[in-house]
């Protein structure tokens, strides 16, 4: 294996391949930074650029766009609270809160470093553990996926603020996802014979509306008092305390991201959410989560980068894409005349190991590009907000249109902008809605497939060992917040009685 990896490095370090890896990372970062366009949309848009290239060079460039785009989304998440993909939602919450506190540079720096370390760790794992890890991922079937998604939705309730309101927002997100067609039978559902609704509600207009437009509308209320965010050079660097807080967050986020990324269909969004929630449990100051927790940003960013690399494991070893981005990578292989599947690692070993080595190289490029540039990106926040606000609104709507080439997406973004604005006014948290929307399809499909496998018997969730374990976790996720709320209420009553 070492020989093959060295051969891969020899391929990746050829001048032409190096150039295209750098180009891919750069283009990915630029496209990922445009609101509404995440890594997968960026890869799809830029796929034609690779048509004239050698297959190995094309795949290296596309992979560069994939992880470059992941980091590009971090820029918009931190600077203007508009995540490019669902995996950036947690970064949009805490990273943007950090930016508002004048720590945009630190948020971008920890994102770059966390992404780099987790990315390198994940690529090492891809190289070392591809076959055994892929077989573990395959043990997950419909019951486990359903419970994993349910656990994600229930855990959203503990994101901070009111658990009931968080759960209400999550259920609202699941309800929105029902619109369109039934994912298993293709029957129109809740579309009321409207062609616009039959296509279903895409993630992009929801995220642009609920985060981008709603946030700008709310800030327009007090635009006189919104001062440009001052970003001083010394605020860019991480303090020793930041390091102490984030060290293990990066490790935990990276490990979670890798394992979730390996499971086909789970993806970077579930990885970043799970890593964020796990970090909140480990954090010495969980109350800062949602208000600018640097360890939350570190965990979420490490997880989503590790997941995007981890998704390459089932893609390379079995030909099963673990995410939308790896699906496009797989499509590129087919377009270049390469048959994906278990035989890929033996028949095209130069390509596979070249790709793995290129991921090491690409992550180094990303770090070199982003650490010195963090102050430049953060300096964007010095532009007076009164000029930024209409620019964000306009570019977001262009991004919404570009994602689907349909003006209805622009209308959808506006509707969800108003919904997000109302949610801000009523104190309903917005991240649960977006995350539930992402999890909804996985949740419904796997629940129905699980019941189909068991001929309608819910016992399937207890009979499978991993599923039974997950069911216990779900039960705990329901019972613990209730017990905590009762305990807090009793404590408050006791305090009140004591004060009298």
């Amino acid at each position, binding site marked *: 294996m070492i020989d093959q990896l060295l051969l891969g490095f020899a391929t990746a370090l050829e001048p032409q391949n190096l150039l295209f890896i750098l180009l891919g990372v750069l283009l990915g970062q*630029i*496209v990922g930074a*445009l609101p509404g366009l995440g890594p997968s949309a960026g890869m799809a*848009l830029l796929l034609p650029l690779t048509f004239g290239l050698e297959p190995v060079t094309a795949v290296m460039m596309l992979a560069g766009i994939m992880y470059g785009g992941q980091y590009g989304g971090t820029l918009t998440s931190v600077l203007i609270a508009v995540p490019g993909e669902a995996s950036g939602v947690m970064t949009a919450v805490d990273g943007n809160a950090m930016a508002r506190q004048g720590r945009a540079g630190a948020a971008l720096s920890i994102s770059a470093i966390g992404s780099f370390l987790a990315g390198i760790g994940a690529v090492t794992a891809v190289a070392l553990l591809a076959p055994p890890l892929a077989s573990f991922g395959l043990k997950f079937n419909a019951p486990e996926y359903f419970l994993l998604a349910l656990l994600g939705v229930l855990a959203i309730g503990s994101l901070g603020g*009111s658990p*009931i*309101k968080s*759960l*209400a927002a999550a*259920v*609202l997100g*699941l*309800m929105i996802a*029902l619109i369109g067609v*039934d994912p*298993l*039978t293709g*029957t129109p*559902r*809740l579309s*009321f014979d409207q062609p616009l609704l039959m296509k279903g509600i895409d993630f992009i207009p929801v995220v642009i509306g609920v985060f981008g*437009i709603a946030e700008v*509308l709310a800030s*327009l*209320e*007090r*635009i006189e008092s919104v001062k440009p965010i001052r970003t001083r050079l010394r605020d860019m660097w991480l303090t020793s305390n930041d390091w102490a807080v984030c060290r293990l967050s990066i490790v935990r986020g990276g490990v979670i991201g890798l394992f979730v990324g390996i499971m086909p269909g789970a993806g970077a969004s579930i990885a970043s959410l799970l890593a964020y929630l796990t970090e909140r449990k480990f954090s010495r100051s969980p109350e800062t989560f949602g208000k600018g927790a640097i360890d939350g940003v570190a965990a979420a960013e490490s997880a989503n980068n590790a997941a995007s690399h981890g998704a390459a494991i089932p893609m390379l070893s079995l030909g099963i894409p673990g995410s939308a981005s790896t699906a496009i990578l797989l499509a590129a292989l087919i377009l270049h005349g390469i048959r994906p599947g278990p035989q890929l690692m033996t028949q095209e070993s130069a390509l596979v190991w070249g790709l793995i080595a290129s991921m090491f190289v690409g992550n180094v490029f990303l770090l070199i590009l982003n650490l010195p540039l963090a102050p430049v990106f953060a300096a964007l926040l010095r532009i007076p907000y*009164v*000029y930024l*606000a*209409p*620019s964000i*609104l*306009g*570019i977001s*709507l*262009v991004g919404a*249109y*570009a994602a689907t*080439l349909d*003006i209805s997406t*622009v*209308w959808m973004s*506006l509707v969800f*902008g*108003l919904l997000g*604005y109302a949610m801000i*006014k*009523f*104190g*309903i948290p917005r991240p649960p809605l977006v995350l539930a929307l992402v999890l909804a399809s996985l*949740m*419904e499909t796997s*629940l*129905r497939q699980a*019941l*189909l496998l068991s*001929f*309608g018997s819910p016992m399937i969730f207890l009979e499978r060992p991993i599923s039974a374990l997950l069911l216990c976790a779900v039960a705990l996720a329901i019972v613990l917040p209730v017990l905590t709320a009762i305990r807090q*209420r009793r404590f408050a009553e006791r305090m009140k009685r004591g004060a009298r």
Partner: protein
Amino acid sequence: MRLVEAIPALFMLVLAGIIVFGTAGLNHWDGITPGARFFPTILAIAGSAVALVLLWAQWRGFESVILHFPTREAAFRVGTTVAALVALAVFTPLVGFIPALAAFMAVMLLAILRQRPLPSLAATVIVSGFVKLVFIHWLSVPLPMPLGF
């Protein structure tokens, strides 16, 4: 508890009703397979339950509701911005994205946010130019251009 505070819970109940009504023609089960109405029904029940718990918690005072409604001036600013966004969406297919975006930027900065003309026009040109350069020329996104630009 004021009626306005109950709006989110009532909204959830209405949505649950729409889901039940909107999926009336679909099956809960197709033989041994859960049908297209199976998951929506579960969600309608879950949504109603969460809404009722929220109403109960607000009524008993367990859930604090702090409503920050805008001042008249701020509400006017938000309202006119929404109107400008709607106009952008309406005019885009008619005049194209770049002219509609430029008009939106100019109206926002000059009329709604009352900024100085020169920086406002500069910002309008920069943002429109950025969109044209990146989306049309670089990414080749076919933005609507009925007037040719």
